[in-house]
């Protein structure tokens, strides 16, 4: 009979929570911004970085009086890095919270599923970190403040060939959407120029030991090794590469712009050349953002967090002029022109992709040194813009 009692208790819990739930969803015309990212689980570090950045943006806006005196509310939901959870999160944000716009999702897989949903419901969505080329092709409500794999990879491949003069490079990537997407993009551009990617090694998500792959690369006579990956994994690779005795230079991606890399990999970062978003010349917004972020959360932001900060600010600006009407907010976001953010000057292409120049940095010791900003023209030629 204990079982029956339990069922009864559960039923009461259910009814009670449903009534609470009905109350929670009443207030609908306030300025609500949703956030979806992995806050727990394997990829939680990236989600937490981005959520904190969005929080910072919202808190700063509220400290300055919000929008017409009304406060902005950020509602963050955990996707646990899975499609299933991500769909539940957007369902909740859209139906019970009635958000105006969404920052996220952080991971590509979730971004596809949630993006379809946002497009269908007409919720403007800006992802700070989903790089897959097809995401913005879902529809006109989907934007991102990160360049697609295609563009970053293209600049990388062309730069490696044209400027650095490499003809034969190796690559080590792991089987996740971010790492593999960058590899695909770089390889296409590098081979279109006439270079060869002669040694390719892969790993799994969550791997920490890359010695086998690195030993193979060491024996492959490549001129340089491209390691597009997240910060922690790159730190592992650099340290272990030194241990197995690799002397050729390493090439990398925007994951390297996270200052954590210097804490984790120390001197092993010396000589790495990486591609990252071009800095904003007109302002010191980036340094300001970093110091404010560090003051608030006691850790340094990575480049995804910087993107999330900008995405949130773009949405807040759009809401200032368009109110809470989702369609009007979308139009405002699409019309964003030369928005000066912490990650640089932001414009959106007609399909919602970020139009940005890519900067090249070379690490000397543990300090990145700016080498110039580039874009690639329609014929695949590298154009230096700064």
């Amino acid at each position: 009979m204990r079982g029956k009692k339990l069922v009864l208790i559960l039923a009461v819990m259910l009814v009670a929570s449903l009534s609470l739930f009905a109350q929670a969803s009443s207030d609908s015309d306030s300025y609500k911004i949703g956030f979806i990212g992995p806050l727990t689980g394997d990829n939680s570090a990236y989600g937490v970085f981005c959520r904190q950045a969005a929080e910072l943006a919202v808190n700063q806006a509220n400290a300055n009086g919000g929008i017409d005196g009304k406060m902005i509310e950020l509602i963050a939901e955990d996707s646990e890095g899975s499609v299933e959870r991500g769909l539940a999160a957007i369902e909740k944000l859209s139906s019970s919270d009635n958000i105006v716009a969404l920052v996220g999702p952080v991971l590509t897989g979730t971004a596809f599923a949630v993006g379809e949903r946002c497009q269908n419901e007409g919720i403007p969505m800006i992802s700070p970190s989903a790089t897959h080329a097809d995401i913005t092709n879902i529809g006109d409500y989907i934007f991102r403040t990160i360049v697609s794999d295609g563009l970053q990879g293209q600049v990388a491949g062309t730069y490696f060939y044209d400027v650095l003069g490499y003809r034969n490079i190796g690559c080590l990537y792991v089987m996740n959407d971010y790492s593999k997407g960058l590899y695909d993009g770089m390889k296409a551009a590098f081979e279109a120029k006439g270079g060869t990617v002669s040694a390719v090694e892969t790993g799994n998500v969550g791997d920490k030991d890359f010695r086998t792959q690195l030993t193979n690369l060491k024996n492959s006579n490549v001129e340089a090794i491209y390691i597009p990956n997240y910060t922690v994994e790159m730190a592992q690779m650099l340290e272990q590469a030194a241990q197995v005795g690799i002397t050729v230079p390493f090439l990398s991606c925007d994951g390297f712009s996270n200052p954590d890399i210097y804490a984790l990999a120390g001197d092993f970062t010396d000589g790495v050349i990486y591609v990252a978003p071009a800095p904003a010349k007109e302002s010191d917004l980036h340094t300001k953002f970093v110091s404010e972020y560090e003051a608030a959360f006691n850790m340094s932001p990575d480049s995804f967090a910087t993107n999330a900060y900008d995405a949130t600010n773009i949405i807040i600006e759009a809401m200032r002029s368009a109110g809470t009407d989702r369609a009007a907010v979308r139009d405002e976001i699409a019309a964003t022109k030369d928005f000066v953010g912490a990650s640089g000057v932001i414009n959106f292409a007609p399909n919602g992709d970020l139009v940005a120049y890519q900067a090249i940095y070379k690490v000397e010791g543990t300090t990145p040194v700016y080498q110039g900003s580039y874009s690639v023209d329609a014929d695949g030629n590298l154009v230096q813009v700064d």
Partner: protein
Amino acid sequence: MSFFLLILIYTGIYALMAIGQNLITGYGGMLSLCQAGFYGIGAYATAILTVTFGWNFWATLPVAIGLSALFGLLIGLPTLRLNGDYLAIATLGFGEIVRNVLNNWVSLTNGPMGIQRIPMVEIFGFQINPYRKVAFAILVWVFVVALYFIFKRFAKCRLGRALMAISEDEIAAGSMGINVTIYKVVAFMLGASSAGLAGSFFAVYSLSVTPGSFQFMTSVLVLCMVVLGGMGNFKACILGAFIIQFISYLPQLLGVTNLVPAQAKQVFFGLILVVMMVWRPQGILGREKFTYVKKSAKGIQEG
């Protein structure tokens, strides 16, 4: 309300898996930890056949079910003679292999990017849009109810009784003339196929599949549903599916996700598991009793 419907849909999808797990674990006493593997096989079968080959969803359903049953046979035939924990480990390994292959076989599964833009389900020319929750919830629950009755039928007849005998004492059951291997493998295949079915529905619900959805944790969750509800009781495992989904979305339901740190929910979930096991290890409803064999069922429970 729409969010509540989503929980109902997820409950339905997990209930399909839990019903299968119940036949394997609740009746057969086999500790299997690879429902997520079969779930993934079903989901990818539907995704690949609809997107790459342009099949209709309904045509992919038997393939998804058949394919997961086939893998159930392949993995079950050799491993089911292992007992207890060894079987758990072997099935755990199989589940990890499925995920690993889905993630790496780029030419077939598109690797970590997954497969997007799976077409919606159509029934008699009527499109079941997963954004309109009611129709989809009805669709899933029709299958849950159907599977419930089918599996209950299985469990009540020879198969179920044979399985219970095997789980009580394999050697004694064998000496009574029960073909242990066949019954075990059949139960395993049936359980696997129910997870394949669930996978198909998940694919057309989320309209995209990525390898990340089919992790070891999913298998563990399904097992928790069965144990929490009550082993050997199909109603209970549907209840278990609901309770676990309900708990895991409780902060969202209450609208307190901003107040509670994301990890707190998981810690709470862990606490519930521990407390539940310590307090009531037979699950909420406990094992279902056979009315027409009251005496022997009682004997089994006491023994």
